[in-house]
């Protein structure tokens, strides 16, 4: 089948199953940096301890030809089991988790709590002068929340990067 050759770069979420062995993440990252592909976000964790398989989720962007190249190059790595472009392979769920620290007193402190409530963020730590909120959702939702916290005393953000999974009963 001929490949789409349009020149528009789009964001793609790619899931990679790999053997959890020494150096495997370096191989994946080295491939992206060595070939000039960009990484917008990257997460990795073991998902099957018995078989020692890890799942890497990479959000990258490129033209259709570049995305095909990225998939082919990843598949070529010896410890890679499977590469799947979740963006094109049907509907998916994407989630990201953020821990957001806000410091302040008085009205701004109350206001941050009120907004957190609207976003269904949980308070996971609190002192007289600060909160740590935990928020899960799409990257856009997290961005919106963080933007709103900025004038209210935002001091620190830690995000996991996107994890994604296809909808429906089938595995990767």
């Amino acid at each position, binding site marked *: *089948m*001929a*490949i789409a*050759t349009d020149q528009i770069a789009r964001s793609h979420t790619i899931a990679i199953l790999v*053997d959890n062995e*020494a*150096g495997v993440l*370096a*191989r994946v990252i*080295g491939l992206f940096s*060595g070939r000039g592909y960009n990484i917008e976000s990257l997460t990795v964790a073991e998902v099957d301890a018995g078989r020692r398989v890890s799942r890497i989720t990479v959000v990258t962007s490129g033209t259709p*030809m570049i995305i*095909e*190249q990225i998939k*082919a*190059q990843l*598949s*070529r*790595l*010896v*410890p*890679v*089991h499977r590469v799947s472009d979740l963006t094109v392979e049907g509907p998916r769920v994407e989630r990201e988790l953020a821990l957001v620290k806000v410091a302040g007193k008085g009205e701004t402190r109350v206001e941050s709590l009120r907004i957190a409530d609207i976003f269904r963020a949980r308070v996971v730590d609190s002192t007289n002068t600060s909160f740590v909120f935990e928020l899960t959702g799409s990257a856009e939702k997290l961005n919106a929340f963080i933007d709103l916290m900025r004038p209210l005393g935002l001091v620190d953000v830690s995000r996991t990067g996107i994890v994604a999974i296809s909808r429906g009963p089938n595995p990767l």
Partner: protein
Amino acid sequence: MSETQMTGAEMIVKALADQGVEFVFGYPGGAVLPIYDALFKTNSVRHILVRHEQGAVHSAEGYARSTGKVGVVLVTSGPGATNAVTGLTDALMDSIPIVCLTGQVATHLIGNDAFQEADTTGITRPCTKHNYLVKDVNQLARTIHEAFYVARTGRPGPVVVDLPKDIQLSLGTYAGPEKVSHRTYAPRMQGDTRAIEQAVELLANAKKPIFYSGGGVINSGDKASELLTKFVRMTGYPITNTLMGLGAYPASDKQFLGMLGMHGTYEANLAMHQCDVMLCVGARFDDRVTGRLDAFSPNSKKIHIDIDPSSVNKNVAVDVPIIGDVATVLEAMIDVWQKRSYKADPAALKQWWGQIGEWRARDCLAFRQEGAIIKPQYALQRLYELTKGQDTFITTEVGQHQMWAAQFMKFEKPNRWMTSGGLGTMGYGLPAAIGVQLAHPGKLVVDVAGEASILMNIQELSTAVQHRLPVKVFILNNQYMGMVRQWQELLHGGRYSESYTAALPDFVKLAEAFHAVGLRATKPEEMDDVIKEMMAVDRPVVVDVAVDQKENCYPMIPSGRAHYEMILADGDAQKQPTITDAGLALV
């Protein structure tokens, strides 16, 4: 208990023997002493002591490319491993199967900046197909067998196995090669049937078809070359080869258009430009081949056979990709062609060959040997004429001489031509020739060299002498880094910045100092005698051929230009293409 206990070092040597390894190209050092000790006690593999680890890898490449087998290298930690990096990168770019064993400091010292420690797996990760660090002696034998499997299957490439010294010394259980399989890595051999049928139909209906084949045919094995030749003859279509693919189709055949690309023939490049169906067989649309991408063969349907999915649609979008082994896919294509009784369109083909005939008549490789100075092309033409009667193996260094060798030496069979294509490594040819000569005793092996390149691994002459390998180094001595000088002439206003190879050694005396034989030719009429003498001597020979200093290599597609924009040796100066600013930035 049937399981055999032995030291790691003994396992390594046994694993090599079980893999059928004949030669190991290596250089000792502290971190591999246990392996050298194990080698000392066995006759099963022969160690070839080189003079520099880069030479070890190139020798292994020469061995691998001329036999289709895996080449094996053994080097020490630290500088041994870093010296091997150029060779590994070369093998990766040209898809050559190599297993390189590197010594490493003991596992408890890793990460401590120990003496001669280097992060070998880190350094070689981007320049190998795969690499391993062995941390458990009971995984050692398995890992080495897996390394051989990964190196030779699919798209071949170099594999490094890093071996800490304590692992070499500890006792463990040996596992034989029969047990190796891999849970993720399994290259695909069979092409997709529908794609194959679609491809053959496209080919059968073509009016201006061309076969364009590369190193993948040679890597696939002898059968692939036979099938390619059969298919090309069945169809009656023209064929061109890449630099890496020379020899996969007999060069003397009338359907062969010569090499394509930057220094390819006029007829090959124009046929590529104007064809309506292109069958790319085991080649990768490299920038030396395509020229300016947006002008590359604009009106053709493109079919691409490759075992590596990442080669497909990388530089050029193709219409029919077929992922699989070249021989397997070609066999299936021939089958479809025959079963469906396809025939080429005779009228269209006649017209196409008529057009090609006109391009051929341009005689783009013509040169004139006049006067007292030897033309480099003449030297190679004589070398070809005097050696074509016997099975000859040619390696090269990198530069003008390499391109002239590709143009003037004609190869009838695969595995006879070993050149550094992808990386363009000066210093490749002499060590490669040593590997070739070991694999083919009694055969004529010639390294076509430049005077600058040969100095990059000249120390390997000592290896050739030690192991009584009668390789011939045929230096086209133009006293310039000719290819650099040519680019400076064409692109940088003739400012020959640092490209004159001053203070050259006397190559005849240099050969003699190494206990090899030195010969020299300075006049055209001496050429034949010198070549005959070189062939007659059963020892390593260095031939210093003084050639025209200012000769340029043509045809040439200047960087950033298209296939139809070639500079020709005798072209009309007014109409010759020039290099654009965009082209200047290209390599």
